């Protein structure tokens, strides 16, 4: 074993340790920073979910936030004084995910034979319809005022009240979602999706039912969106249609593109950049959005493939760690 291997192993260990320490230090920061971290994690979960559809299957979904809304309102209706139903958080989490998946299938079933921009615009319309419906179904959702005073969530007897609690919950969920999606990406299903993205006709020619494949991607991503919505509801303890505008759908798509399409590491980078950027720009007051837009366009024009190179993905990192540890001679 050469000297350089030890140095490299130490370097790798240092990087990994730094990541863990940074993640573990977040709860000790002032509440504002923890909230920002929570927000980043929620967007990572959403973007990883949407990435299944956009990045892997190559279907542009511009109404993703509708599933997020379904989840959030599931919590708002099933765990608040609205109808005096108070289900536990974990139950609603699963109900929200299921409701998201059902909504995804309901939307997907009729529209998935459409392609490209037509699919994009129909999903966009669906997102708007859901938002307008929530806005107007006063008896059910209180309309534009939203539903306030949602239950304080708790998980296995542990209270989930402060941003720090949600930070840990979200961190665990982010890891679960990322690991699950990574596993799926490498499975035969992930390969089928990628084939679908490259050439639908060939996939169909191979005797694979493309509609089922698309539906599966839609349902899974919608379930992740629904679960994200439940957490959002429990975290804010207030939901209103304003949180689920078209712009939010676009933000999630932006995260994926800015980071690097179809790449979990890229999605994480995109979420960090696009959530932190507006926070940093607070100093610019009224010029904030202007600078945000300029930075956005500049980044896209300079790095159209995303900030993170497609080669630098989760698989690459895992391989790197594994080979360096098990058989360093090969590296």
């Amino acid at each position, binding site marked *: 074993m050469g000297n350089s291997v030890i140095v490299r192993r130490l370097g790798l260990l240092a990087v990994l340790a730094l990541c863990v320490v940074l993640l573990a230090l977040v709860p000790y920061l002032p509440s504002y920073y923890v909230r920002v971290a929570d927000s980043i994690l929620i967007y990572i979960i959403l973007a990883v979910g949407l990435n299944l559809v956009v990045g892997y299957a190559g279907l542009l979904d511009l109404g993703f936030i509708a599933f997020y809304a379904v989840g959030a309102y599931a919590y708002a209706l099933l765990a608040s004084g609205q109808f005096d139903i108070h289900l536990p958080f974990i139950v609603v989490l699963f109900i929200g995910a299921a409701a998201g998946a059902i909504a995804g299938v309901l939307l997907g079933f009729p529209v998935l034979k459409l392609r490209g921009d037509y699919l*994009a615009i129909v999903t966009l319309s669906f997102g708007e*319809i859901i938002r307008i419906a929530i806005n107007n179904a006063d008896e059910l959702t209180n309309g534009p005022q939203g539903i306030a005073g949602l239950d304080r969530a708790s998980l296995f007897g542990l209270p989930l009240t402060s941003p720090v609690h949600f930070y840990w919950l979200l961190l665990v969920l982010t890891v679960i979602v990322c690991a699950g999606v990574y596993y799926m990406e490498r499975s035969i299903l992930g390969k089928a999706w990628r084939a679908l993205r490259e050439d639908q006709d060939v996939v169909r020619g191979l005797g694979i039912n493309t509609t089922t494949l698309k539906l599966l991607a839609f349902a899974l991503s919608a379930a992740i969106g629904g679960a994200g919505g439940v957490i959002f509801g429990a975290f804010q303890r207030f939901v209103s249609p304003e949180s689920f505008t078209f712009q939010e759908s676009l933000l999630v798509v932006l995260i994926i593109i800015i980071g690097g399409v179809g790449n979990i590491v890229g999605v994480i980078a995109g979420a960090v950049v696009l959530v932190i950027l507006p926070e940093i720009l607070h100093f610019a007051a009224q010029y904030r959005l202007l600078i945000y837009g300029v930075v956005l366009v500049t980044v896209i024009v300079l790095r159209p493939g995303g900030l993170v190179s497609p080669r630098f993905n989760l698989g690459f990192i895992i391989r790197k760690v594994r080979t360096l540890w098990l058989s360093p001679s090969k590296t």
Partner: protein
Amino acid sequence: MFDYFLQQLIFALAIGAIYGLIALGYTMVYGVMRLINFAHGEFFMLGPYIYTFLFSGLLGLGGLAPVLDSAIAIVASFVIVGLLGVAIERFAYRPLRAYGRLAPMLSALGMSIVLQSAVRVTVGPQPVHFPAIVESTPIDALGGMVTTVQLGILAAAVLLMVGLALFVNGTRLGIWIRAASESWTTSSLLGIRVNRAVSLVFFIGPGLGAMAGIMYASYYGIMQPTMGSVIGLKAFTAAILGGIGSIPGAMLGGFLLGAIEVFGTAFLPILSFGYIGTEYRDVFAFAVLILVLLFKPAGLLGETVSEETTVAKKDY
């Protein structure tokens, strides 16, 4: 009942004409670049702001009749917004051509944020009064009340649409545009300067959008920096409804969307015994869009050539 119907019809035509003009910009850009230009709604918003700025400037200078000031300001705002469109294509979209379709779309999104917030920063977020171009006088037409503004919008929009149709179908430059939307590669092989056709499209589209914005602002008498977002979305819906890439389709889609909205809002509460109210106005537009696409996936006037030539095998 009939006069009410007539009144609604004129209203539908006026708002439909505005949708149609914006939809033309979406559809032409899509035709040559296969790009959903999310920044297009902002050109619509810029129109009335630039017009007001120029008009009050000219009025301040004096020496001309206000009618002439107004005419110059209208033409100038078409040109200015058109040139802005050309510049945006050159710097924000052209470098991204080799990178699939998502990157330019997101760049358009960024431009939309830039344009909207630039206007907000310069003139403030609040709605501003828009100076009337034509005095709004009601006319009694067959028992229904119609205003001169509505008729003016309708006349101007139809004039612009006819002008565009003549230009695209009858001139050399128009043929360039049609050739470029038919096939990028073939037309460049045949010696057509595709980049010029693209620039031309990015001049005309935003220009028409600006005209639509001026019409919209003179109809409601106010303008605000966010006015382009929702209208832009609806006009895009209209473009899809008619069949994106098709110029007559965009016009048809615009008028159709106007009719759906106006008559839906006016008659559905009556037909559904007040159960479905006017607040679902925007839902009609989107629901009809979904329905049309389900049965006619290329839109009403979209080309129904074989699936492979119309849609790329690769979605995104």
